């Protein structure tokens, strides 16, 4: 099947073959607020290739969603500003494109799924209308054909009795089904990159697993690049190829998923891993990283994690650690990543 016959080839420079599908490069995002400048994203870099899944992990407020919204170009500017950085899609910096060119990519070639499908779907239009809108607006399809496509998509995401339910409204579906509709809408035009921002947080555990499975399957079938934002390390292992761990608007570790699980290279990742409840440690106290994430308006000097870090030394308080390269596919923003890897604490 030929994907997206309408692709504008001017967006494909010569080095498209060597460039990753999507590369976020040294991205900075800040918000002007009454309390002052909130630096929500401070130099985030990550890449996704076709067919690859990247899990972006981190506590609430670490800048995962803001990064995703910057990629999509759906930040409200102002109050948001992007003072530095690039978002390259097939080698083209999206941040430099005109609004017009950008909106040709948004939704069609890079799509996004949100956390709470109930509020993310429009309550006053039928789900069929909302899915078929993609075909009507972006492909100029007629109403009836677009509706047929909507039914096909609802079938594809395994909504039972799709044909009968296409004219129902979002509130008439269960949470899991609503998220499936959201997914159907996002994959409508065969996007090359799909960003899922905590797609399962609002759902109960059994449904969570089904949705993750569906996402993984759709990705396999269409060879999309998938960015999966979550703070649940548990769901990551089965789906993701690699992980980027964020803390206070930075990437503190990136690694292939199994490397990180086996042996985390940053004290924060290690803390996250240790705080997953495990069957073999039943009865023991659950580990929790002590302290709170920093206030973005008043960031600690040096490494942002130092106030909570068991590996802290003097220079952690003064020197911001760069992202040290551990191997070709791995990096850690900790001055003492070797000790973290070796597990020699104190």
């Amino acid at each position, binding site marked *: 099947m030929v994907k997206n016959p309408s692709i504008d080839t001017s967006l494909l420079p010569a080095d498209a073959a060597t460039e990753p599908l999507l590369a976020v490069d040294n991205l900075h995002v800040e918000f002007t607020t009454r309390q002052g400048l909130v630096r929500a994203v401070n130099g985030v870099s990550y890449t996704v290739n076709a067919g690859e899944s990247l899990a972006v992990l981190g506590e609430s407020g670490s800048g995962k969603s803001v990064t995703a919204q910057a990629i*999509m170009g*759906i930040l409200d500017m102002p109050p948001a500003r992007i003072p530095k950085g690039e978002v390259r899609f097939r080698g083209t910096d999206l941040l430099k494109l005109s609004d017009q060119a950008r*909106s*040709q*990519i*948004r*939704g*069609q070639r890079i*799509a*996004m799924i*949100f956390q*709470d499908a109930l*509020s*993310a*779907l*429009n*309550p*006053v*239009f*039928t789900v069929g209308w909302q899915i078929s*809108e*993609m075909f009507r*607006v*972006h492909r100029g399809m007629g109403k009836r054909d677009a509706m047929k496509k909507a039914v096909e998509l609802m079938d594809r995401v395994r909504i039972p009795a799709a044909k009968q339910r296409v004219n129902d*409204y979002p*509130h*008439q579906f269960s949470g899991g089904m609503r998220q499936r509709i*959201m997914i159907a*809408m996002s994959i409508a035009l065969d996007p090359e990159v799909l960003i899922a921002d905590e797609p399962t947080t609002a759902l109960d555990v059994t449904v969570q697993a089904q949705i993750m499975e569906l996402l993984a399957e759709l990705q396999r079938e269409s060879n999309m690049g998938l960015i999966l934002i979550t703070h649940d390390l548990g769901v990551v292992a089965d789906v993701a190829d690699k992980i980027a761990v964020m803390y206070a608007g930075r990437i503190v570790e990136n690694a292939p998923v199994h490397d990180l699980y086996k042996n985390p290279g940053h004290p924060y990742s290690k803390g996250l891993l240790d705080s997953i409840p495990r069957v073999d440690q039943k009865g023991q106290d659950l580990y929790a990283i002590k302290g709170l994430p920093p206030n973005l308006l008043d960031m600690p000097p040096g490494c942002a994690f130092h106030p909570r870090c068991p590996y802290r030394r003097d220079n952690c308080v003064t020197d911001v650690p760069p992202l040290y390269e551990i191997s070709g596919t791995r990096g850690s923003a900790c001055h003492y990543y070797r000790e973290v890897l070796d597990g020699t604490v104190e």
Partner: protein
Amino acid sequence: MGRYVLRRLLQAIPVLLGTTFLIFAIVYALPGDPLQALAGEKRVDPVFAAAMREQFHLNEPLLVRYGYYLRDILSGDFGTTFRGLPVSTIFEGKFQVTFKLSMTALVFEAVIGVGLGFWAALRRGKWEDKAVLAFTLLLVSIPTLVSGFVLQLLLGVKLKLGTGIAFFPVAGVQDGLRSYLLPGFVLATVSIAYLTRLTRTSLMETLRADYVRTAVAKGMPKSRVLGRHALRNSLIPMVTYLGADLGTLMGGAVITETIFNLPGIGQQLFQSVYLQENPVVVGIVTVLVLIYIVANLVVDMLYAVLDPRIRYE
């Protein structure tokens, strides 16, 4: 949908009973003797007075009198005045005038209020937004009495078209729709201000909603995001306001009607209250209440059209 409509209709019945009873009770509790008011300074012949009291059931207890009144209204009979005129001939034509006036005002409100509010919301925090807010403050702070006379003088008398004819008629209803434009606008001023603010707030809130962000993320053009995805969701408060305002406008048209000398129901109501013509007052207010209830029913129906969650509740 059918069940929803039926339920709303049934719910209107107790509202109708309650409000008409209240009006009835309040008007009859007013101090003063209606027969004496009718006679003015003259002494009332006690025999005649007794006969009148008998005819108009003035000696019966309140509830019984309410029963008579309700029976008459339901058969379309609004009773007769103490002077022997059927109440319905007194309102004849007058309700139409006030209704046309209020509808004109409502159209002004809807067009200007929603338009300005929308514009302000899209320009939130910019000078246009601030100008709109200042303008609404100005509108609410000028009494109708002032804006009415000033506009009448300016547009009806001072400023002339090339041919020497004034822009708008000064008074009366001889010129059809044109007669209603100026008074309609004057009547609408305060409501325009409220509706502008309501629209602004409502749209600003909707624009922050997740589903609007979804529409943007779907790559929908801005005009579609606003005109399809946001608009429909922000309409409910505005529709509610407009529906409720029809009643307020009709009941509150007396000043405007007086300034522009429109033979409407407001003037009649004022006169009848003054003369203690209770049957007329009750008749007028009852019709106003009916209009209010019908307007609210229409609003309820519109809700169901606008929001499927209400339709299927």
